[in-house]
């Protein structure tokens, strides 16, 4: 029951992108195609799970006053690890995501979960929370990435759709990213509210 709640909150009712509106910068920048979105989502999920686990393990050991500095060092360490692994084994994703991999360090979802969950909970729930929030981030990015790739470039996972009909390039650009994000958030909020009984 509790596990189900963690996942429900991470992916739907507390989705980091649609509900908490955290991590907007990587969301907009890396959702130009589905594969980039999934690559970014999974990289962030890996960092989130590892940092939540370690921070939860060390929560009684780290003094209150230096907790943020410690969290950032731990997060930066895992991000650098991801950076090395992607460059070694998934070069095309590494190349496409560019500077946004190192920037996972300052992705506020990760610090937010460290501060508000991992530092107050036991190890297993913290790992699950990291996984759930990471999946929520990945799902949101993938939805946005799929919309922007299909409409903005006329492809999906690199395969040509529509046979040469000119795509709406604006959706692949930053301006289109903001527009698409707005519509997707509106739709997500509408669906979630309707499920709650339309209270708000």
């Amino acid at each position, binding site marked *: 029951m509790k596990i189900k709640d963690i996942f429900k909150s991470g992916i739907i009712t507390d989705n980091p992108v649609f509900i908490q509106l955290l991590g907007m910068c990587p969301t907009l920048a890396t959702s130009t*195609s589905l594969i980039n979105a999934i690559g970014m989502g999974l990289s962030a999920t890996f960092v989130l799970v590892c940092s939540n686990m370690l921070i939860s393990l060390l929560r009684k050991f780290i003094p209150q006053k230096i907790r943020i500095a*410690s969290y950032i*060092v731990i997060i*930066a360490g895992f991000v650098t690890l991801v950076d090395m*692994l992607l460059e070694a084994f998934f070069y095309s994703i590494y*190349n496409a995501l560019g500077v946004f991999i190192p920037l996972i360090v300052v992705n506020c979802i990760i610090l937010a979960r460290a501060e508000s969950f991992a530092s107050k909970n036991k190890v297993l729930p913290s790992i699950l929370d990291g996984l759930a929030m990471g999946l929520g981030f990945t799902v949101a990015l993938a939805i946005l990435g799929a919309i922007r790739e299909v409409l903005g470039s006329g492809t999906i996972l690199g395969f040509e759709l529509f046979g040469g009909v000119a795509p709406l390039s604006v959706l692949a*650009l930053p301006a289109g990213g903001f527009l698409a994000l707005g519509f997707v958030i509106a739709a997500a909020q509408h669906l979630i509210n309707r499920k709650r009984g339309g209270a708000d």
Partner: protein
Amino acid sequence: MLRMALTLFAITASVAILLAISNYFTSPIIARSAKERLDQSLNTLIPDAISFDEITDFEKEINIGSAKIKVPAIYAAKGSGDQQIGYCIWVTPMGYSDVIDMIVAIDPKGSVSGVQIISINDTPGIGMKVQSDEGFQNSVIGLNDSAKIVKSAPAAKNEIQVIAGATVSSSAYINGVNVALEVVQMLKQEV
């Protein structure tokens, strides 16, 4: 106070050790795959070459207009019997949002025989067209003199039309080709 300092030190030290270990395992793989990608590009550009010898004694920056363009490496392609069959010049012009890494092949007569992009990170669907627009890419082949960038249909042989809407990225591409041509001119003067 001391406890805080020691805790933070312990955390940073362990993270550093973890990263040192992972660097030890990943850096050879990274270096090897970078080498493979480079070899693949070189072989696509000059398939007849038996070896590519790096020319090391060369200045690594070329000025073009107001921009400085780095030239990370130059390779002399050797065919059978140690015959010089062309040059591959690795140039790095600045694109719209990031540096474009590309290799320009120049034949012994001094004209461009091909271009391979190693990495480009420009706007999808716009700047990235320089990687997919074959008409544009073919327009620089055969060029033997510094190209001029034009926006309308080219009138002379050394005029290259940029891709509409992607002026910055395609100008960068042409600048890269110009730098490569200049490098080969300099090499010939030295010999």
